[in-house]
């Protein structure tokens, strides 16, 4: 530890203890990395990855970080501080006198203004829902289905439309009429990442959209049930000419899956489940329905008044009787005949469930029409017997029907006197429109094959029913139910806790006795206990997650549960599919400005009720046009209402000024230290390669500044023969020498820029300047950027030592492993914070690349990025030759950084249902007002967290919704709004709250809170708070919910990983004590915790360990013709490391491959390419491409893991005896270290605390 304690001079030579250096390297390996991919193991996820072009697999080399690189400083001689650059490159650059004096204020750049304004947003629409792909991906899901119930539906969520695009040919069979659309959507999907939206003839802005949204609903029913590629593979090939039968077939097989997946306890057969389903459906109309009983009954009562008109039921039963023969899967010729009846029957079922769910989820603000239900119940009863006796396939088509056209019958049947349990101005029975004809048309349009049958079915209904008011139960997304066992079993399992069946997530687990607490498969987000329909519509957990998927009714209940309540957001995630909506009026609530979303309720055709503030709004005229069917009067089928993640192209109402161009400014440290480290070469090279890929349009501008003790500007104005360097040495009062020509158009001055980039690395090779005037350089950058806003990328290699914002070394190396106080986690000065706020005000974000070999006070420097919505990258011990792995990492990261999507001048607003309020935000941004986050830039790798509190009791609602709206300017100069909406149920019992706990989200939120706590209070406080979080919640659970009097430590199954994760957090670099941790590393880990999205953060906290020397194809998934083995997860304990094995640890930003001493020599030879263990080198960062099966498997597995994240992790091969293994062993968090508990000890500790 010879680092200069307290030496104010950064140039003082210092050496990093090897161990530390290495540790640092691993920690900084992958700074920001939310990827498009959701969870690592998610089949769909990795599929998703393949579509976006930005990130391929870049094998990354990383030589083992035996990091003592005494960098530049040592070679430094004492330097004349005033050395001018003239000496070095006067030949190249005409260096004006000391100061180039030109108008020194930043005059607004006229050119820029002119450039604004054009680019009329073409009416483009990319339709499509989430997720593309299915085939292989879904088999992954299949793999896991048995594991956990949440998982299956999670997958559901994901796979969704994918299937369609991928299997468009198959789909075509199934849906001849729509095959074209499918194909189309596939194309558009592919195109999306590069932001090319197929623009349509202006006359018909909805053309494409229509397809897609049509696509989406169609897809849904199947999607739900389709779990696996195999499944689809089975069903699809069967060439059943009549489309519907095809569907049936498909769905049948699928249904098998869904049941399988959903029956959490045991796996009842499909049939069983079905029957069960039906029976419960049948009982649904019974007021004393057990399900309904256990659940909130107020609604039930509303619903139940037995008003069902006998007429209706008679008619319906008639219909059903006709259908009975056809109920079994229709043979082709029969198809047309069978259709109506089937549909009808299904309708019945659907309604039955509707009732069920109506009861269970008790949709508060629903204007649900009770009459519908009655009829439906009747209907359903009629249908049940037939369906239950027939094949298991029959229910599924229903759902299909229900999705697309199912709402019609509702409309038709709903009588004018619908007593909606709606607190809002009751929907005056709308004038009974001539619905039948109207509906028939659109329906038929979309699905000609179905149409006749449907119409037939509808006709009797209609005739039997009093002229139906268009009550649109179909609109009421809550109410609209689709049959499916998922939903049923979940509603049975999850909601009716009081009844005997206890959901899996509440199963008490004795932690001290359960030895293998970590599941073999990755942990998935629990699925909110909503009805199937809402589940389908709900936002993907990758973008939007809540720590409690069952929101407690009151703050008191929440306090009792002792669990944190908050949201985790990843709003700008790379999505392969995203419905983009162009429309003149963006429909929003007039009082709370919520965007219309799938969870609003339509009171009647003309009005909708906001799901956040319950205000009733008018549906604007334009919204009445349904692009789906090109028909009028179907607002509930608009894509806004069918997708919980949509993107709007905003009109000029959403602009305060013309959309800014993409502006990039690079501020580079060129002091001796920086030149020694050699990052300039890598940066310039990377920039040269990616210059054309920088996101932007023809207005894109770019500029460069360098600084040491002076600030150098580069005039790149078009017309110059070579770049012109302007030096400003007056760092106390920085001015811009030629404000107009420093940021230049990328395309007009490309040659000059390339010249500069080629020259830059060599320009400063002989510099003797050791000082770094970062503060003044940033001030200059701010001045330069303030007219437009944009992105400033700062590369810094040492502690700023001159001018404003200079910092002193605060780290005391002797305190690195202190178990007591860790000081200086907060900033030393408010200079960077102020600067960041100034920048944020001018829509400028500052991204910091810190490449330092010694303490650089990241805690202070990070402020410039934290509050300006930038990102932070840290490369400890960076040196381009001594530390090639870091160099390669920088290169890879830069590639991603330069080419990833970017949004400018963004704001994000998070809204939630009345009664909830947000009180603390985590992430990189500036909170401008209570719920408005100001984000100068938004990038796809940024995650956010929000803490919530319950201000008012939520007793009068059964669902709460959260909406984030991210308004940004795309790099193409379009103003866009990305909206995510999440819907969660409200529960009143403590058991339900525990049942819905999302342990991963909770941990991430706790980590964020702990970072705050350690900065504002102290690290030990934060650690105590973490331990207390476990102790409190488990003791609260033990004393209230579980009535088992065990001696052990009891946790609900949903929280069984809670102690493990908290222990992992305590051993995380950010919070650990006792282990030597450099201050910058610690601070960087904290920054990461704050701004990483959940998926990546979880790997940082709790790495995944796999055994890879015996990879088999068992359970493997297929991704793009590659077979990716899926080894089980091992727990992070040395007991799992056998000497004859090889293990891969995935820490998010680093991969370690640990090779046991007596590892199978076949593995070493086949995979590593060395004859035996002894010959494996100490530093190995790549797996050779060998032509053996095991090598192929290992590589494809690692590639697949890498694919799931945007930043490339470095791979280290660690031999059992190599010194680098300490790093590897640090991550084995279940083991005991000198300074920390083992997992079992930790459990005992918790138990002790609880008993106290």
């Amino acid at each position, binding site marked *: 530890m010879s680092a200069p304690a307290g030496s104010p001079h950064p140039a003082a030579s210092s050496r990093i203890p090897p161990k530390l250096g290495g540790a640092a390297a691993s920690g900084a390996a992958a700074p920001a990395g939310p990827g498009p991919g959701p969870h690592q193991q998610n089949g769909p996820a990795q599929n998703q990855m393949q579509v976006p072009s930005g990130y391929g697999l870049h094998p990354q080399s990383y030589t083992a970080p035996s990091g003592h690189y005494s960098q530049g400083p040592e070679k430094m001689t004492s330097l004349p501080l005033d050395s001018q650059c003239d000496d070095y490159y006067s030949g190249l650059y005409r260096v004006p006198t000391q100061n180039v004096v030109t108008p020194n204020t930043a005059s607004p750049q006229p050119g820029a203004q002119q450039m604004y304004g054009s680019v009329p947003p073409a009416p483009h629409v990319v339709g499509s829902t989430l997720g593309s792909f299915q085939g292989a991906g879904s088999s992954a899901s299949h793999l896991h289905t048995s594991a956990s119930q949440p998982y299956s539906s999670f997958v559901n969520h994901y796979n969704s439309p994918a299937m369609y695009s991928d299997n468009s040919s198959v789909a075509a069979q199934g849906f001849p009429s729509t095959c074209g659309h499918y194909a189309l959507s596939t194309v558009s999907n592919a195109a999306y990442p590069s932001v090319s939206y197929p623009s349509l003839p202006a006359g018909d802005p909805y053309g494409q959209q229509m397809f897609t949204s049509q696509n989406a609903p169609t897809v849904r029913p199947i999607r739900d049930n389709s779990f696996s590629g195999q499944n689809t593979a089975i069903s699809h090939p069967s060439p059943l000419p009549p489309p519907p039968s095809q569907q049936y077939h498909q769905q049948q097989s699928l249904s098998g899956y869904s049941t399988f997946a959903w029956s959490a306890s045991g796996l009842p057969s499909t049939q069983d489940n079905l029957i069960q389903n039906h029976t419960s459906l049948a009982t649904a109309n019974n007021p004393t329905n057990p399900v309904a009983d256990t659940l909130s009954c107020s609604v039930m009562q509303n619903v139940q008044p037995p008003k069902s008109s006998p007429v209706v039921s008679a008619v319906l039963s008639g219909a059903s009787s006709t259908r009975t023969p056809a109920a079994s899967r229709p043979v082709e010729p029969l198809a047309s005949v069978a259709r109506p009846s089937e549909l009808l029957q299904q309708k019945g079922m659907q309604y039955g469930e509707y009732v069920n769910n109506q009861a269970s989820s008790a949709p508060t603000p629903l204007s649900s029409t009770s009459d519908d239900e009655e009829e439906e119940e009747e209907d359903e009863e009629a249908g049940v017997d037939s369906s239950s006796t027939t094949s298991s396939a029959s229910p599924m088509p229903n759902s299909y029907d229900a999705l697309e056209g199912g709402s019609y019958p509702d409309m038709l049947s709903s009588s004018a006197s619908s007593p909606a349990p709606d607190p809002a101005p009751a929907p005056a029975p709308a004038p009974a429109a001539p619905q039948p004809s109207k509906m028939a048309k659109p329906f038929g349009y979309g699905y000609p094959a179905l149409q006749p049958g449907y119409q037939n079915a509808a006709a009797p209904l209609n005739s039997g029913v009093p002229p139906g008011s268009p009550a649109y139960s179909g609109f009421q997304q809550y109410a609209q139910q689709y049959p499916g066992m998922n939903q049923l079993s979940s509603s049975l399992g999850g909601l009716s806790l009081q009844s005997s069946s206890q959901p899996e997530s509440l199963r008490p687990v004795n932690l001290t006795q359960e030895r293998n607490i970590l599941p073999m498969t990755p942990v998935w987000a629990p699925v909110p206990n909503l009805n199937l329909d809402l589940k389908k519509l709900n936002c993907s957990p990758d973008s939007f997650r809540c720590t409690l998927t069952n929101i407690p009714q009151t703050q008191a209940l929440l306090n009792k549960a002792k669990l944190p309540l908050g949201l985790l957001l990843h709003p700008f995630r790379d999505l392969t599919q995203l419905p983009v909506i162009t429309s003149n009026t963006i429909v929003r609530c007039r009082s709370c400005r919520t965007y219309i979303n799938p969870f609003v309720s339509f009171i009647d055709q003309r009005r909708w009720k906001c799901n956040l503030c319950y205000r009733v709004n008018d549906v604007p005229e334009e919204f009445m046009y349904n692009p789906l069917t090109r028909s009028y009067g179907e607002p509930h089928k608009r894509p806004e209402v069918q997708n919980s993640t949509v993107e709007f192209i905003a009109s000029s109402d959403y602009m305060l000024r013309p959309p800014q161009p993409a502006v990039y400014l690079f501020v580079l440290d060129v002091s001796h230290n920086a030149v020694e480290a050699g990052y300039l070469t890598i940066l310039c090279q990377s920039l040269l390669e990616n210059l054309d890929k920088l996101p932007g349009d023809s207005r894109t501008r770019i500029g460069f500044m360098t600084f040491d003790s002076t600030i150098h500007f580069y005039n790149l104005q078009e017309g110059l023969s070579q770049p012109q360097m302007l030096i400003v040495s007056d760092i106390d009062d920085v001015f811009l020498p030629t404000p107009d020509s420093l940021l230049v158009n990328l395309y007009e001055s490309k040659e000059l820029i390339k010249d500069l980039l080629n020259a830059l690395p060599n320009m400063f090779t002989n510099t003797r300047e050791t000082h770094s005037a970062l503060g003044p350089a940033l001030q200059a950058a701010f001045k330069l950027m303030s007219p437009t806003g944009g992105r400033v990328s700062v590369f810094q290699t040492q502690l700023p030592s001159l001018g404003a914002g200079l910092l002193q070394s605060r780290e005391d190396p002797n305190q690195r492993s202190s178990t007591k106080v860790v000081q200086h986690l*907060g900033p030393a000065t*408010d200079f960077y914070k102020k600067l960041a706020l100034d920048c944020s005000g001018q829509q400028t974000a500052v991204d910091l690349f810190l490449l330092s070999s010694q303490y650089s006070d990241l805690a202070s420097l990070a402020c410039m990025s934290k509050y300006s919505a930038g990102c932070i990258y840290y490369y400890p011990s960076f040196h381009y030759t001594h530390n090639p792995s870091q160099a390669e990492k920088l290169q890879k990261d830069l590639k991603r950084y330069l080419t990833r999507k970017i949004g400018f001048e963004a704001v994000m607003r998070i809204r939630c249902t009345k009664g909830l309020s947000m*009180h*603390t*935000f985590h992430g990189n941004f*500036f*909170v*401008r*007002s209570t719920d408005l986050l100001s984000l100068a830039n938004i990038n796809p790798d940024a995650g956010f967290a929000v803490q919530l509190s319950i201000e008012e009791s939520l007793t009068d609602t059964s669902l709460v919704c959260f909406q984030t709206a991210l308004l940004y300017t795309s790099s193409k100069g379009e103003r866009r709004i990305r909206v995510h909406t999440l819907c969660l149920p409200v529960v009143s019992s403590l058991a339900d709250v525990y049942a819905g706990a999302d342990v991963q989200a909770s941990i991430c939120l706790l980590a964020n809170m702990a970072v*705050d706590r350690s900065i504002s209070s102290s690290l030990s406080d934060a650690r105590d708070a973490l331990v207390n979080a476990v102790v409190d919640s488990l003791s609260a659970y033990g004393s209230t919910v579980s009535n088992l009097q065990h001696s052990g430590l009891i946790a609900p199954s949903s929280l069984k990983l809670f102690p493990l994760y908290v222990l992992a957090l305590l051993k995380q670099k950010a919070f650990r004590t006792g282990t030597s941790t450099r201050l910058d590393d610690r601070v960087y880990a904290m920054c990461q915790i704050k701004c990483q999205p959940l998926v990546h953060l979880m790997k940082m906290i709790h790495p995944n360990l796999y055994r890879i020397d015996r990879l088999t194809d068992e359970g493997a998934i297929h991704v793009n013709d590659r077979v990716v083995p899926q080894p089980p997860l091992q727990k992070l304990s040395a007991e799992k490391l056998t000497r004859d094995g090889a293990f891969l640890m995935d820490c998010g930003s680093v991969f370690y491959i640990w090779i046991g001493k007596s590892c199978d020599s076949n593995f070493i030879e086949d995979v590593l390419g060395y004859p035996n263990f002894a010959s494996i080198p100490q530093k190995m960062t790549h797996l050779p491409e060998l032509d053996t099966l095991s090598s192929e498997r290992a590589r494809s597995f690692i590639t697949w893991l890498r694919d799931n994240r945007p930043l490339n992790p470095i791979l280290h091969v660690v031999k059992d005896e190599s010194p680098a293994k300490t790093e590897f062993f640090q991550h084995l968090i279940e083991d005991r270290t000198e300074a920390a508990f083992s997992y079992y000890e930790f459990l005992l500790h918790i138990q002790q605390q609880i008993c106290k």
Partner: protein
Amino acid sequence: MEAVVFVFSLLDCCALIFLSVYFIITLSDLECDYINARSCCSKLNKWVIPELVGHTIVTVLMLISLHWFIFLLNLPVATWNTYRFIMVPSGNMGVFDPTEIHNRGQLKSHMKEAMIKLGFHLLCFFMYLYSMILALIND
């Protein structure tokens, strides 16, 4: 002499009352989103020291003039003001930090604090007024 002390205290107290009201108004503006956090905090931070000084002066004055009861009444508030001012972390921009004011219910606690101070100053106001009149009569 005593009258002069109380007249001065009274004026000072008036100023503090106005300051408290100003704090409350500005904070509620922020709450209602009429101004942004940045301008709110820079506005308020300007007045933190004057408030501190104003209140300390009265407290000291009471100590000097040997009004023990009033001094003891003022002491906790003066201590709190000073403590709050000293404990601002080095990285923050003042007692009111725009980046944190929306976090952890800080806005609410600031508001509460301003309200309490307002009440306290009003109480003091009448106390000084009474004492002043008493002193004038005695003279």
